[in-house]
């Protein structure tokens, strides 16, 4: 690859993109973007509330319950009437101090909302009372303490807290994450989403301490930081939209052909075309980081994710037959990767599973919490290597015979997989290179399944893991046979299977990354990644997974040798073998 050529192509990509914009389109685009920008403050001032007024409460204006209903977003006051609930005009009816509730799901949901609205109203009302001790007779300080930490002697540092009046327990080590309260030296929960009215103006229970009332307690949930982290994902969608168009444009009408006959190598072209978009994404990310108060680690964590967005879009644009298909591909990429990044990050405060998402690094960074190296690696290395593999696959088919043919998307994907398989041992290499995707898929399965009860989650996860791993192992083999790279003979199929199994086994050692963040401590995590963990002790346990991978891969490869139907059968056999093995190891031995 020559940096000079790459840069020239990058420059050309930028000028072509900007130069092709005719004046009328540019004007329209500017107007549209400006109106988006103009709308933003208005939307921040009155954010859309999709749940506004969905529950109806029949209450007279003279009733004391009218005020709480009027103040609550989801509730709507409707005029009272004898048959308001029975007639379906309201879910809850207030008559004096009696409540009538519709006997439906909706009625119960409305009642629950009504109840919390009245509680919030009471708190606001009490805040006006002259006797704060009677209005808020309970104050709370909440501390998060890790079990098994030995009590620290008083006064060793700012992170110790003293329980008021409880002389015996001094010096608990509060290591929790509410950065906003560190100045008080005491872990007072200041909630991000709750009602500010419940924080006492002046509690007078101790100097320099602002305890909250019970209503002000909130479970650790990094809502604000999550919203900020989400801001990093939105511009990526625009970037891949543009990038996908640019890549597919090379293919429509064979426009990219002159580039291919130029002395520039495929690597130069792909790198040159991608560079401006990656730089653009990095620049936007940096600007957002500056805006939301995140630092370098947030930018470094988002970049591999941007790379994966671009990498998958690149593949999608190479495989898509038409603009329409590309639109579906880009929407699928956005939805899938956004889910992958966003869902685990929701649990940043409560669960180590969050570490798989780059956004959890952003959330921690925004909150000013330390980012551990192990967590950082786990969230960025699989994503980054997956992006690199996407580019390796795409560059392999970035040539005339593949760019300008119209095939179905899966067929093109198989071509891309088959392209680099110049020898049998390369199947092993590609099995290993698919590991990042396996890791991403398995981590996501763990994230999705961890809310399910353990008894159900573990078998479901074992099955999912078997499907993901066997699929990844056998795909290069099938692509090799389907693409005519190998002779369809049993001996070769066995060799391919062995190569794929060994390659996968070696690549699987990457999964040891999960150890760094303590993921295997979870029941579900252990089920998914247990097999990579074993083998530290005896050689038999070390070799067992290798034997499993080879045997299952050979079964699938023998099927792949014949036809699609046989491949499906062979793959099912391999999956069953895998599940049986996992069941034996994880359930019976573990």
């Amino acid at each position: 690859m020559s940096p000079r050529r790459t840069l020239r192509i990058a420059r050309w990509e930028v000028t072509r993109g900007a130069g092709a914009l005719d004046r009328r389109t540019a004007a329209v685009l500017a107007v549209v973007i400006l109106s988006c920008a103009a709308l933003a403050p208005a939307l921040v001032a009155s954010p859309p509330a999709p749940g506004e007024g969905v529950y109806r409460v029949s209450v007279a204006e003279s009733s004391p319950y009218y005020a709480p209903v009027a103040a609550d977003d989801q509730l709507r006051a409707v005029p009272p009437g004898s048959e308001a609930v029975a007639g379906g005009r309201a879910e809850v009816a207030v008559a004096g101090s009696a409540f009538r509730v519709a006997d439906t799901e909706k009625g119960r949901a409305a009642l629950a909302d009504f109840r919390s609205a009245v509680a919030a109203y009471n708190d606001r009302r009490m805040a006006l009372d002259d006797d704060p001790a009677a209005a808020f007779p309970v104050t709370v300080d909440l501390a998060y303490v890790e079990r098994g930490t030995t009590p620290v002697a008083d006064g060793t540092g700012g992170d110790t807290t003293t329980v008021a009046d409880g002389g015996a327990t001094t010096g608990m080590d509060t290591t929790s994450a509410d950065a906003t309260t560190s100045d008080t030296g005491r872990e007072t929960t200041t909630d991000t989403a709750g009602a500010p009215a419940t924080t006492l103006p002046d509690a007078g229970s101790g100097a320099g301490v602002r305890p909250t009332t019970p209503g002000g307690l909130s479970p650790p949930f990094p809502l604000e930081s999550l919203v900020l982290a989400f801001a990093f994902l939105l511009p990526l969608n625009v970037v891949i939209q543009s990038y996908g168009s640019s890549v597919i444009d090379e293919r429509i009408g064979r426009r990219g052909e002159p580039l291919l006959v130029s002395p520039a190598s495929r690597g130069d072209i792909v790198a040159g075309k991608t560079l401006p978009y990656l730089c653009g994404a990095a620049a936007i990310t940096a600007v957002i980081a500056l805006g939301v108060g995140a630092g370098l680690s947030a930018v470094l964590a988002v970049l591999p994710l941007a790379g994966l967005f671009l990498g998958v879009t690149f593949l999608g644009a190479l495989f898509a037959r038409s603009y329409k298909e590309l639109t579906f591909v880009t929407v699928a990429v956005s939805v899938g990767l956004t889910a992958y990044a966003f869902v685990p990050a929701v649990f940043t405060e409560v669960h180590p599973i969050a570490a798989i998402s780059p956004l959890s690094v952003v959330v921690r960074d925004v909150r000013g919490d330390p980012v551990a190296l192990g967590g950082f690696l786990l969230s960025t290395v699989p994503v980054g290597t997956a992006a690199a593999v996407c580019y390796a696959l795409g560059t392999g088919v970035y040539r005339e015979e593949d760019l300008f043919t119209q095939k179905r998307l899966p067929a093109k994907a198989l071509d891309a997989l088959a392209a680099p398989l110049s020898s049998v041992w390369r199947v092993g290499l590609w099995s290993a290179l698919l590991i990042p995707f396996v890791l991403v898929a398995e981590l996501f399965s763990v994230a999705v399944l961890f809310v399910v009860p353990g008894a159900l989650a573990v078998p479901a996860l074992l099955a999912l893991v078997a499907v993901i791993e066997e699929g990844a192992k056998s795909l290069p083999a099938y692509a090799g046979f389907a693409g005519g790279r190998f002779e369809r003979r049993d001996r070769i199929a066995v060799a391919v299977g062995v190569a794929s199994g060994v390659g996968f086994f070696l690549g699987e050692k990457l999964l040891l990354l999960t150890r760094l963040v303590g993921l295997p401590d979870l029941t579900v995590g252990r089920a998914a990644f247990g097999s990579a963990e074993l083998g530290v002790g005896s050689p038999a346990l070390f070799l067992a997974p290798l034997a499993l991978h080879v045997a299952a891969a050979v079964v699938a490869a023998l099927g792949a040798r014949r036809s699609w139907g046989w491949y499906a059968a062979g793959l099912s056999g391999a999956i069953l073998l895998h599940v049986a093995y996992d069941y034996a190891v994880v359930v019976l031995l573990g």
Partner: protein
Amino acid sequence: MDSRLVVARRELASLGREKTIVLALAIQLFVAAFSSFLVVGLVSLYAPGATAGAYVVTVGVAGNASGDLAPVVDAGGARTAIEYENPALARAAFEEGTVDAYVVAERAPSGRTHVDAVAPEGSFETTLVVTQLKDALTDYERQRRAELADRLDRQPLDLPPERGGNPYFGFTYTVLVPVLAFLPAFISGSIAADSVAEELDRGTFELLRVAPLSVADIVDGKALAFVAIAPAQAACWFAFLALNGTPLGHPVAVLGLVAAVSAVLVGAGIATALLAPKRREAQLVYSFGALAAFGAASLLPESPQNVVAKLAIGSPTTVTWLSVAGALALGVAGYAAARVAAARAGGA
């Protein structure tokens, strides 16, 4: 056969041949699964009434007000209280894992009780424990307030009774249903823009016009196809939701709204593609335009999401019905405007 129908059929056939519509449904399936996962996950973390009973939180209680507080803690179905003579014993029990959390409640001479609560750090339980502590302490606050009522100049209102509402209920109707209603409309507009941009790019648009078809006919045919598939997808979803025990209040009105929004977006998509014949620019203008339109619509007395939520949950207002009527009118007008603009642009 009407030539417009022929164009529409051709578009649908191309979608079917490319299996892209399958991908569209897969995307929506993923969104729905992902939302319901979020519902279960978030709700069980954030408002874990859902897990009540399945997991009992044991709370150690100490301090001079513990005699008062312990019965309140015990009264909740998902928690039990253990009283300790002094805070040190409670802490020791917490360290040993006998209790999930502990509180030290001290009554001051003013009558106010100060509670120091300790919850385990950094585990899935934390949220559950804190929520239970919050419930218990809120109950206790209410009880104490009632005891001190004679010192208050205003009295708190009695709370409505508790009847265990399903915390997923609101989310499904106010978030999931609007997303499933508007996503297909948005995608329809986007692929309408693609379809025209592609015809222009490949030069096939000219071929179509050589055939006895006017630009308006082509626009009609394409629009027919793309406007039709959005409500069809939404209808599939609503049927699916109804099977799962989440029936919609006014399905026909919601589908009408989806059709109207699709008409506007498809018209806009086609107009954009004719205006900016490069796909990249057309898509950028379309995406930002749709974003701006949704943003602007959110400022209406009832936002489109809110209209869908109200119709779906079955509490529409007069404004809701007016919004639906307005959307239908806007759909027809917007599409007609796009068609006129297309005929002018294409004829030139």
